[in-house]
């Protein structure tokens, strides 16, 4: 089984420096790309069926295709690497940032070349201290060896890359809010259209791609679209970093073929549940994805298959709910997070989420009312897609609506018994 994204990465070992990275074939893809037309680079990525790994799964080449090209295109154009990994339960981009920074830089340069961007920013969350240090070192090395700056490797193409370390807030991961943060503003989302591809950073064409997405690019360029598709067990090309956290024997992160089943990830890689704990359900791809239960475990973890369980692949890092953990308490934790991280820009989000949090808090503390279930259901509907500026509130509604569906008995017990059945106190 090929693992292109992690072939240079082993836990506890220093990442390859530039010389070591080159020795294992690094930057060969960049040389190849610089010999191709930007449209040819876009074409091979399109052919590969690479879909964005930040959670939404939008086809990467299609995103790029909206960027104005040619001599008349507005300048400068920007590429932003979204390294603001802050989705609860998600820890995949950190491995790529810490473990092989040059792979990401090479992906950034090739992607920037494909859209003819002049400047790239790596938008990194402040908590990733080691990643910041390693990225800084790797960017400096890349400049020193002519991979960045003016006339890269003697070609006419030039690119500046800057590391921007954020000052917190989950909202910054949302692509238009991220652009506001980069401009030195509050990270509120922007209305779309105009889309960032046309009018993004400082009103110029801008592409925002996730770390894992960009790390795939050098491999697609060097080994081709057919090879990339052959790595996958589904229509979406490539491998995927899958993770598991919660009460399992071996929590962790693995690069596996896209479309590996949840059962395989959970049982073979994560080693199944810890002794004394039973599986009840899981959030497949971070806090803002719908719960799935045991009946869904044979589904492939890819963008389309997960829809069959009314859920999403999201970031591909699962959070497991066990029988000794209260589902209502888990939802309270999740909704507290979303309520706290709401930027306050639109009313359904800031008002609705704190209301939901209060209802769940009351339920946990024995003050639940029979009418609460209906109230929570209506909130989940009203916070769904189309009612808010961005995806934060719809994301918060996903675990809530599915939690109400699968763990209804548990909600009812809280209300009838006027206490949390899991809380012994």
């Amino acid at each position, binding site marked *: 089984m090929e693992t292109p994204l992690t072939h240079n990465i082993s836990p506890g070992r220093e990442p390859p420096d530039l010389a070591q990275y080159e020795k294992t074939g690094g930057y060969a893809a960049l040389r190849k790309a610089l010999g191709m037309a930007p449209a040819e680079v876009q074409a091979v990525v399109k052919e590969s069926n690479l879909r964005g790994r930040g959670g939404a799964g939008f086809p990467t080449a299609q995103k790029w295709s909206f960027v104005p090209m040619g001599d008349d295109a507005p300048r400068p154009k920007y590429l932003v690497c979204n390294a603001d990994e802050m989705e*609860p339960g998600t*820890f995949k981009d950190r491995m790529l940032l810490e473990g092989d920074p040059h792979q990401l830089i090479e992906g950034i340069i090739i992607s920037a070349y494909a859209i003819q961007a002049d400047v790239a*920013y790596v938008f990194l969350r402040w908590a990733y201290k080691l990643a910041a240090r390693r990225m800084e070192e790797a960017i400096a090395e890349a400049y020193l060896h002519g991979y960045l700056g003016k006339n890269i490797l003697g070609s006419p193409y030039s690119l500046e890359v800057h590391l921007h370390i954020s*000052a*917190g*807030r989950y909202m910054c991961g949302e692509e238009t809010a991220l652009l506001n943060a980069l401009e030195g*503003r509050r990270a509120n989302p922007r209305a779309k259209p105009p889309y960032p591809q046309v009018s993004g950073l400082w009103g110029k064409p801008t592409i925002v791609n996730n770390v894992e997405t960009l790390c795939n690019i050098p491999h697609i360029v060097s080994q081709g679209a057919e090879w990339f598709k052959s790595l996958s067990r589904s229509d979406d090309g490539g491998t995927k970093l899958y993770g598991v956290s919660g009460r399992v024997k071996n929590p962790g992160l693995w690069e596996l073929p896209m479309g590996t089943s949840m059962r395989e990830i959970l049982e073979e890689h994560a080693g199944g549940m810890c002794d004394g704990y039973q599986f009840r359900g899981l959030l497949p791809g971070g806090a803002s994805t719908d719960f799935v239960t045991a009946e869904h475990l044979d589904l492939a973890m890819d963008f389309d298959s997960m829809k069959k369980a009314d859920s999403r692949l999201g970031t591909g890092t699962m959070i497991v709910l066990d029988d000794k953990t209260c589902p209502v308490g888990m939802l309270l934790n999740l909704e507290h997070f979303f309520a706290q991280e709401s930027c306050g820009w639109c009313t359904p989000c800031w008002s609705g989420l704190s209301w939901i949090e209060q209802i769940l808090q009351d339920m946990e503390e024995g003050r639940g009312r029979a009418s609460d279930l209906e109230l929570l259901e209506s909130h989940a509907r009203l916070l769904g897609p189309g009612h808010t500026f961005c995806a934060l509130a719809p994301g918060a509604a996903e675990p809530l609506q599915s939690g109400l569906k699968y763990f209804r008995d548990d909600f009812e017990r809280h209300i009838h018994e006027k206490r949390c059945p899991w809380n012994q106190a």
Partner: protein
Amino acid sequence: MLSEQERREIEAHARHYPNNRAVCIEALKIVQQYRGWVSNEGIADVAEALQMKPAELESVATFYNMIFRKPVGKHVILLCDSVSCWIMGYERLREHLGDRLGIRPGQTTADGRFTLLPNVCLGACDHAPVMMVDDAHYQDLDPARIDEILAGYQQGEKKEEEKSTDGNAADS
């Protein structure tokens, strides 16, 4: 007024952006690094340097949770309170830390040594529960491990104090 060092660092970062405003978050972080937190004076200093209105900068400063608009202790403890850590027993650790330090989340110890803050997912969920103290990450925590970590910081400070009272410390 910004110190010479603060000004130099802000100017170095400003070169990465097409206008001054864009560097304001970095500038706040730089001021915080040297002064421990961002006071009203810090806001005024940065606003003046970047030709922004103080109120405008304040609206940015209060948005980002890692810009401290109140004084914090010498060490800031960020305890992850997101879902994986919650499942793995974050609440027990919060109680334990609170008992050991004699403070609740959001407070600073009377001796000014530690501030305890809850924080969203720190991205090490396979090693939950986790926390950060200043720039260091700590994983797979339990109460005993937390005691060790706190003791380490207390000892570290004792050593620093000894050094600072020892005239030859610079040579050792």
